[in-house]
């Protein structure tokens, strides 16, 4: 795949042009962030048709976009790594707010029937909290657990999960080898699993 078509290279090009004062490039960076926010929002509600009605893309999405725009509009982004860090922090904050608002104990989704029964991958009776979130609080727990990771580990989740970069792209952003990145990613997933299940036992 040519380097020019990779996400990190595109973003770097946009940053370069935006730094030169091009408003369209800045808007395109925001578009990228908003697209990720939209996709992640939909992923969050995947499997919950009865809940999705609250999260259609008009008002709530626009509300999140306004805050995202406000947070990113006046920041001078210096590098791809800087941009992804800023954007993912805002995106995660929005997702966490949405999950808390609609799925929390006082949220409107809390008392609704959901369409997916939680199950353990091994068929056991113990629900693994690190599986794809399948109850109203699962997404809150997941986003909050990521927030609590050390910064360097959080950055890996940001790039691979929230930004959806490939291993090759993320390794370039972090200036490390693909092999090292994969190793760290596996380690982060294990830590996330442990953190989520520890929370569940409390």
């Amino acid at each position: 795949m040519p380097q020019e078509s990779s996400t990190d290279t595109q973003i770097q090009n946009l940053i370069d042009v935006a730094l030169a004062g091009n408003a369209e490039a800045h808007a395109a960076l925001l578009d990228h962030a908003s697209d990720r926010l939209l996709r992640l929002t939909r992923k969050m509600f995947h499997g919950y048709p009865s809940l999705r009605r609250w999260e259609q893309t008009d008002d709530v999405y626009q509300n999140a976009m306004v805050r995202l725009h406000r947070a990113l509009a006046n920041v001078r982004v210096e590098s791809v790594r800087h941009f992804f860090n800023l954007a993912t922090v805002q995106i995660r904050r929005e997702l966490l707010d949405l999950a808390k608002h609609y799925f929390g104990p006082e949220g409107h989704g809390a008392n609704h029937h959901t369409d997916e029964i939680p199950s353990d991958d091994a068929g056991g009776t113990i629900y693994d909290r690190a599986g794809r979130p399948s109850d109203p609080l699962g997404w809150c727990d997941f986003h909050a657990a990521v927030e609590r990771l050390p910064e360097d580990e959080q950055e890996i989740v940001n790039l691979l999960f929230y930004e959806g970069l490939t291993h090759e792209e993320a390794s370039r952003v972090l200036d490390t080898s693909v092999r090292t990145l994969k190793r760290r990613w596996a380690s982060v997933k294990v830590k996330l699993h442990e953190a989520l299940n520890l929370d569940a036992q409390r």
Partner: protein
Amino acid sequence: MRRSTLTLKDEEILGDLIQKWEELREMGQDTPASELCHAHPHLVQELARRINILNVTSWLDEPLEPVTNDDPPVPTTPVASRTLAGRYRLDTLVAEGGFAQVWQGYDLELQRVVAVKVPKPSRLLSADAFMAEARRVARIKHPGVVQVFDVGRDGEHCFIVSEFVEGGSLGDHLVNNPPAPQQTIRWIAEIADALEHAHLYGVVHRDIKPANILIDSHNRALLGDFGIAQSANRAGKQALSLGTLRYMAPEQLEGKDLDPRSDVFSLGVVLHEALTGKVPYSSLQPNVLRREIVTGVKQVVSPTMSDDIKRICEKALQRDPAKRQISAAQFASELRAALASDAAAPASTNGHKRWWWLGSLVLVAGAVAAFAMPRAKKVESSPPVMKQTPGVFSFAGNYIETPVDRFAPVTLEAWINPTSLPPSGCFVIGSDIRGHNGVGLCLYGQQLAYEYLTGFEVSESTVPLKEWTHVAAVFGETETRLYNNGKLVHTGPPTQSDGGTPFVVGRIGATNPDLVFVGQMRCVRISKGERYRDDFTPADSFTPDDSAVLIYDGKHVDGNRVIDLSSGGNDGTLR
């Protein structure tokens, strides 16, 4: 063996083993931990645990679905009770959006038909905040605002009860029965009047669109649905962005503070849509649409609009709020001036005025538009300048700046012939500084009125359209008196004066371009002290005397200089 008992060397080995397991998995081989751990049997259990975790968390590596528009339709949230709070019976669902349902209902207590808006509980972040806002908006009373009768709660549902307006929305009219362009512009000017009134109360509507402009059975335009409005000083801080995206101002999409000019932008979008059949920014992709609006990169104003209206629309749609009309009142004034200008324009060769073909353009194909375009050429240049009909001053957004700082006691008088009297008012002579009151002679709708340093007084005496009328305000030591054609019609509080800004003729103040007078003035006089105490017969023209400090009439103008006919030497400047 648990993580806490592992050595650094063990962690290193486990990392290598997991990497190997992942590489094999990528090749389609699901290798068990025992097979990978031949050389490190003490790590088998831990490796198996970690492999299990990586299987459980594999969803983190799944790509996200691209955004599509295949969402299922939003189901209706039923209203729990068909009679809310034991008083408002819900009869017919007349509209439903993402935020609320609107019902035609019946007030069982007062026995009248009402409209009941019921926001969907899931869309309200705070019912209390919504109720507080609704109560505040309910205090806005204006002929151009749909009157709110009541707000209340029934279980989880909040509701707003308002006047039921029959006749449909502007949106309905545009689709089913497109009005003549002049009519559309009058309606939009009326809505701008209503907005100006709301803005004076510190309320920014935030959701101006054709669906929220209602046309009643008397052909009046009314502004409804202030349900999501927030006070200007709070707007944008924590508000939901519930307005329809394509009518939103850039600053609204950017989460910046909103002010009345944000509503002016939205009304500019409505004006564009109403006259050309399309909104300036029309992408169906929210991201693209948002970007178009925020960056303002597209050519936004249709070339099929008349030059006057195009200029007004372009100004309203400026990305920078500072470049838009400064207020809804100014937007209304400019629209009315354009209408008046059109009415005064000579008929075209086929006997129809410019609006006729403009109306046709809304309805017919582009080929006809190309034919009609050359006839769109505007008679006047823009921005509006004073057109000198011999012997009179003509005003259409322009004004005369005098060198006389406001003072009191003073008598202000003029012969006026208004061609438009907006409900929000206009000034014959003003001296207002934005944010503060001034000393001025004005009209509130058709009612003669005056402004003084601490308030407004409105008489019950009206001034007719398109007739010459002498109007005067005597700001005396102990009272202020208003005269209509020499008859004392109102007495009110006196004013103090602090100088600091000059009197201007034709609008509210030198630095404040609002509330402009549209029409003609024959002559104007400012005099020291109280020229009139009882009824009098106004002279057809003003002559100098000891008390006159300034006399202007339309017969004595030299270029932009208005010659003072008193002995005061206070020549004015046409602006």
